[in-house]
């Protein structure tokens, strides 16, 4: 058992951090926010050149590193409040393609992801399901094609993606199964309602009306239920890591602020009430990082120990619940300790707060995952 990162991993994290410090400061990010797309293609190309878009991909398709490298990169994504669709493309969709796609599909899609010419988004969640994974969108076989009907809600990065991975129910001779289709957002019958999210990212609601898909657009073969669950769990692990980076940065900026802001003739950071709050913020961020490491470790281990899906499910839920709560606490307290300035758009703290809040609200909030853990406890007591 060991939790240490090797020198290569630390060097990678360091280079990602340096890149963002030099190329993605708060004012640059403001510029990206002002773009119509809400993110920058130039920055995306730079990610590709740096190799960031290859992290965690299979080696056969030009990938470098694995789950740990991806986690360390996500921490930096969180620290820099990156707006580009990294989570969707690199952490969610590319691993789903690698996990469930055919060899040919992997060879088609993954090198383009690495090169920066293909942004992906996962269209899985539906409005009625809230955080559940129930899918009503359906695909019907017609000759050599499939016909897709339904709607997906709050598709993260859906507004900027070149290709959507859409989950849909199907019936075949063996019964019902869940499939994933590659859908061009510009295809006839696909309608996108694009919008910004609270934290400045982009998303879309996507509607499918009799969308005709060649059979080759189905990702992989057979039921994708387990692959989708694993994909979402990897997405949760990545979100946890992003939250950790954002919390560490939020705490750092709060400490700096309370050292410089003077009231009653002294820096407000000298007051014990504030010091203890910041100590609590530190404790929660520290333990959140432990939970992020746990989530990443469990997701990475699935290939080696496929039988342990219950353990993975429970620990990923535990991590998301803890991190979601910690993110909310750290964000709220950081704004509080900044006083009026915490309410201003001008300072980074309000942007961190919004991102941390939306991370909790994505892929199941802390209450949703608490319920999942609670259900697991009941099951355990009955067996």
């Amino acid at each position: 058992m060991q939790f240490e990162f090797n020198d290569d991993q630390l060097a990678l994290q360091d280079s990602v951090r340096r890149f963002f410090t030099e190329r993605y400061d708060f004012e640059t990010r403001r510029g990206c926010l002002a773009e119509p797309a809400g993110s920058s293609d130039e920055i995306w190309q730079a990610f590709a050149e740096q190799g960031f878009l290859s992290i965690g991909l299979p080696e056969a398709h030009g990938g470098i590193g694995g789950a740990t490298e991806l986690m360390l990169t996500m921490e930096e994504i969180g620290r820099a409040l990156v707006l580009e669709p990294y989570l969707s493309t690199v952490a969610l969709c590319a691993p789903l393609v690698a996990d469930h796609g055919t060899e040919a599909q992997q060879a088609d899609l993954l090198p383009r992801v690495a090169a920066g010419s293909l942004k992906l988004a996962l269209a899985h969640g539906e409005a009625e399901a809230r955080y559940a994974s129930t899918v009503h969108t359906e695909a019907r076989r017609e000759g050599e094609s499939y016909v897709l009907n339904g709607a997906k809600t709050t598709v993260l990065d859906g507004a900027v993606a070149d290709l959507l991975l859409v989950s849909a129910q199907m019936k075949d001779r063996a019964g019902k199964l869940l499939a994933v289709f590659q859908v061009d957002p510009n295809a006839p019958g696909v309608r996108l309602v694009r919008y910004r999210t609270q934290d400045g990212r982009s998303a879309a609601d996507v509607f499918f009306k009799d969308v005709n898909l060649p059979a080759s657009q189905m990702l992989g073969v057979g039921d994708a239920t387990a692959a989708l669950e694993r994909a979402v769990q990897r997405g949760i692990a990545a979100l946890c890591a992003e939250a950790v980076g954002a919390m560490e940065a939020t705490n750092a900026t709060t400490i700096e602020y309370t050292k410089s802001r003077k009231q009653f003739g002294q820096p407000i950071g000298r007051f014990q009430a504030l010091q203890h709050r910041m100590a609590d913020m530190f404790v929660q961020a520290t333990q959140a990082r432990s939970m992020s490491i746990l989530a990443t470790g469990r997701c990475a281990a699935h290939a080696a120990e496929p039988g342990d899906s219950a353990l993975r499910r429970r620990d990923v839920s535990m991590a998301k619940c803890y991190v979601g709560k910690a993110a909310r606490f750290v964000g709220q307290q950081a704004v509080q300790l900044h006083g009026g300035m915490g309410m201003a758009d001008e300072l980074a703290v309000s942007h961190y707060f919004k991102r941390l809040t939306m991370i909790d609200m994505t892929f199941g909030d802390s209450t949703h995952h608490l319920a999942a853990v609670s259900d697991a406890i009941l099951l355990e007591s009955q067996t």
Partner: protein
Amino acid sequence: MDLEYSATEKLFRDDIRAFIGQNLSRDVAAKVLGHKRLSREDIIGWHRVLHTRGWSAPTWPREFGGPGWTAVQQHIFDEECTAAGAPPVIAFGVRMVAPVIMKYGSAAQQQFFLPRILSGEHWWCQGYTEPGAGSDLASLKTTAVRRGDTYVVNGQKTWNTLGHFADWIFCLARTSSEGRSQEGISFLLIDMKSKGISLRPIALIDGEYEVNEVWLDDVEVPVTQRVGEENKGWTYAKYLLTHERVNIARLGESKRELRSLKAIAARVSNDGRPLIEDVRFRDAIAALEIELRALEYTVLGVLSAEAAGRDPGAISSALKISGSEIQQTLSELKMRALGPRALPHVPEALDAGWQGEPGGAEWWAALSGRYFNMRKTSIYSGSNEIQRNIISHRLLGL
């Protein structure tokens, strides 16, 4: 990065588990698991059993007679012992005074004391806190006045744990009143049989006896029983407090208590159904289990950092805060699981083998008392407020 124990670590765990299975008395384990009263013999007996295998001081290096285990091995050992209901290691000797003697004690002190701690011949207790010196420990007033080759010690210590079982006490006493209050303190090792030492039990909130007031009246202590230099005792005391990084989290104990809580919630009837089926109660267990998992992986991270030769710094303060809050919540939920059965106070039922009325008291009688008792965890070993001061000063630079 690897979350799982290695094959070697698993073999080590099996070895520990087998030894405990063969050697731990079932009666003693039942007392520990049921929070019944433990006698001195229960505790020291297990210590002696461990000593036969060379395991009585799991944290010690080989050169002093310890097993020389890695931090991870120590953790595994603690988890296995705690889970099985083994009595706790006598921390004041093995984990507290011994590291100070190893680092700062004379060769003669090392040769005399360390083997006796190992064998269990000496039970140690602590003489730090005074009525006027709690969180502000450095303001202590107990004096040690040098007369030739002896110190004459006068003063009062309090919140002394299990001193009535102890053979020796390590004391902080003032040897100088010059300079800052931290600068005139010396670290003394005192035989509890010395003339002038007297103990008075302090009745605690749960009605049980575990702590004492200790009076020192003209107690003569040979100068050879001072550790290190005169007036440098504060340095040694701080070393002692920071030496224990992860044990303070009480991880193994809380994991055991969580299993016990779940078992109780499955057993208690809630209008004819198991209480664990009640969503509100079960969600509270789930929330606690999540906190405990966060603590567990933080502890494992610290162990891993230590194994890699990195100093994780003042992180033990964070472990203390989380660990104590978890201990308290566990004891609270176990009490609340009882519902109205939380009310009866049946102290006789805390003795093993009691079979009286009200029925079933043999398993639930201890739980409310334990809830009250566990409030100590956020107060002792540096209150959680002091731990927050340490975090904000040392880690956050405030």
